[in-house]
Each structure stands twice: as structure tokens, then as C-alpha cells.
């Protein structure tokens, strides 16, 4: 069964702390994504990566960075957490042929709920 695992379901951090959110997928997918989800705003794309060491900005990259040193792992980094980064963070992976019938289906992790005090 396909699996995307996010390291922490719940985190509480203080303003100014450096925060690492880890995501691992076991499907050998080329593409990995980080989204954040806030009430009323749906999912917003922060960064995505289409290969090891490659990354591209999404719609809201400010205040975030990412790292993809290995194909299966995609990390989201908050260099200096702020209260407006309190959110649910969702990691996803895909390939051009992932999913049924090669639709490029996105597979999501269960999410990491971050609270910044």
C-alpha cells in the first residue's frame, strides 16, 4: 500500500524557533509537494520538488525553505517560526504515472498541525 509519512502529527513551537517538518514516501515518486491548509483558504502550495535537489516555489514560499537530498524525503523548514505560520501542513507525492490508470494522482500524508506561540 502506498504511503506518505509525515514525521509529526502535532507540534508546538515558539516564535523564532527553527522548525523542521519531514516527509517520506515509499513509492519512488519523482514529485513531492508541501501545502499548508487554513480554514476558508483551502490548500496553498508552498514548494514542490520534481527531482532530488530540485525545488520550485509555489504560491506562498515566503518564510519557508525546503530540502530534497534523497528521492524519498522532502523537508520543509521554517527558519524562524512566526505565529502566522500556525497551520496544518500537508505533504504529497506523485509521479507522471502514479495512481490508477497513470493519472498522476497525488498521495497525501496525514498532515502536521503546527502551532507557533
Amino acid at each position, binding site marked *: 500500500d502506498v504511503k*506518505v509519512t509525515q514525521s509529526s502529527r502535532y507540534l508546538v513551537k515558539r516564535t523564532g524557533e527553527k522548525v523542521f517538518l519531514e516527509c517520506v514516501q515509499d513509492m519512488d515518486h519523482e*514529485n513531492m509537494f508541501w501545502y499548508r491548509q487554513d480554514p476558508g*483558504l*483551502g490548500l496553498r*502550495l508552498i514548494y514542490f520538488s520534481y527531482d532530488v535537489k530540485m525545488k520550485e516555489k509555489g504560491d506562498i514560499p515566503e518564510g519557508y525553505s525546503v530540502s530534497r537530498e534523497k528521492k524519498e524525503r522532502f523537508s520543509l523548514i521554517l527558519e524562524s517560526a512566526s505565529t502566522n505560520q500556525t497551520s496544518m501542513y500537508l505533504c504529497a507525492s506523485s509521479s507522471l504515472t502514479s495512481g490508477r490508470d497513470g*493519472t*498522476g*494522482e497525488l498521495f*497525501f500524508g*496525514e498532515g502536521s498541525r503546527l502551532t507557533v506561540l
Partner: protein
Amino acid sequence: LAKTTQPISMDSYEGQEVNITCSHNNIATNDYITWYQQFPSQGPRFIIQGYKTKVTNEVASLFIPADRKSSTLSLPRVSLSDTAVYYCLVGGTLSSYKLIFGSGTRLLVRP
């Protein structure tokens, strides 16, 4: 990248057919249309994908008119467990990797 517009919310009753329409006026030639479902405290999961005309699977049908500027997700005979947020996405597969979710449609199914 094509932006999508969906109704914010919809209400239905058990056993009814529900149709959720998504507008995507700027869809590109290579873009596919994909719908996802999300339950509270879970990540979204894939429902259906299409390029044109009609696609049907065991869960839903997707209707896409010839101009592809909109699409309609059809859920036959909904049950309480279909209460969720439904997202329409345009892109992916043969085009951009950058997949954008809109705000989604919150479907409430009542007994």
C-alpha cells in the same frame, strides 16, 4: 496556470445525486481535470480525473463539455459519509507539476 472556481458549499440529503461544478476558463490544451475529496484531519484523496467528455468510475462521474472551460463532478446517491470538501484541480500529468488547489466545495449530506 488555470485557476478554478467552485461553490463554497452545498447541501444535500442522503440518496440524492449531487453535482458540483468547477469553472476553469483558462485551461490549457494539455491540462487534465482532477477532483479530490478531503475529510477532516486527513489529506485529500483522489476521486476521478478526465480530459474531455465523460469519465466514470466506481465512486463518481466527471462531465466535461467540449470547450473544457468547466467540469461537473457527479456523486450518485450520496450518503452521510460523503460529507467532505471537494477540490477541483487543473493541470498535472502532461503539463505543469505545479498543482493548485482552490478553496474547494464543502458538501454537507443530511439524513
